[in-house]
């Protein structure tokens, strides 16, 4: 059974099929990543409001820029990996973790210990 499956894969999963499936995968993966970053930013915003700080503006603007240019990158960079496409979002996530992480953890601990 396993032999037959692998034999079929070996003969039919060609480079063209791989390239096409990579594009579909990147679309699904990127959309999950955008969804994740968007709600991480919202949580960070919530944390900032609780701490009496100003709302996040620049990171949201950057985020929406990345959302808009992502389809263009997907179409014009067929060989690009997911990491290359999502570098901007990773940067936003790391910056958010550094800048709001400490306050977020303190609030979390406050909730659990209350």
């Amino acid at each position: 059974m396993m032999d037959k499956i692998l034999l079929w894969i070996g003969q039919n999963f060609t480079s063209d099929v791989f390239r096409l499936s990579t594009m579909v995968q990147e679309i699904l993966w990127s959309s999950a990543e955008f969804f994740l970053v968007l709600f991480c930013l919202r949580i960070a915003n919530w944390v900032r409001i609780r701490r009496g700080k100003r709302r996040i503006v620049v990171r949201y603007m950057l985020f929406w820029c990345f959302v808009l240019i992502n389809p263009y990158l997907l179409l014009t960079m067929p060989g690009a990996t997911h990491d290359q496409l999502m570098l901007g979002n990773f940067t936003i996530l790391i910056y958010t973790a550094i800048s709001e992480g400490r306050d977020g953890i303190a609030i979390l601990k406050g909730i659990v210990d209350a």
Partner: protein
Amino acid sequence: MGIPFDTKFMALSWTTGELFCLVFLRWLLFDLLLNKRLRQQTAFFLFCGTGYVLLVCILYGGTDIFCRWLDIYGSLGWFCTSLLWKFFVTLWVGIEGVCVLYALRIYHLVKLRLIGGKFDKNTRTTTHYALVTAIFLLIIFAFYSFYHFNAIHVFQKYGLTTSNLNNMSKFYLRICGVLFIIIEWAIAVIVFKSYVLLKRTHERN
């Protein structure tokens, strides 16, 4: 033959990043939320540390040994390099999957606290989590070995071309890709649910 320097660097930096996320989530869950002391997690840190050092050794010092050891099929040297790369991809799926388990537990703890449910800090022990992690990683790597062992077996048995073997190898990457998407969406949904939970609580207060 051998993995290019930038690929090695990427493999290692990605593994470092993912391990960092795992250690952070574990620290958040056990040390901060469940008040279990860090020294109770010595075995976990020892396991991660040893594993990491071994990976660095294989990647920078032992790639050729690894490839020579597996290079028993004549012209299939490239496949050994490919196997090593797939090993790292499998490792990332494993670490991210474990991260989802921890994130889910943290979400449930916070939710339980916010809705006023019974909060028992001893419901899950570190041993329990270590066991789940070990079983999950075991399944993932058993599949990795099973798939590639069978791929080579089929390649030899039916006299396929290297192109056919390459197709099978690429298909494995696609399987991992699907798992990555599932994991990424799972984390995204947990973050979304956490946001909704926090917002509702904030509005209520």
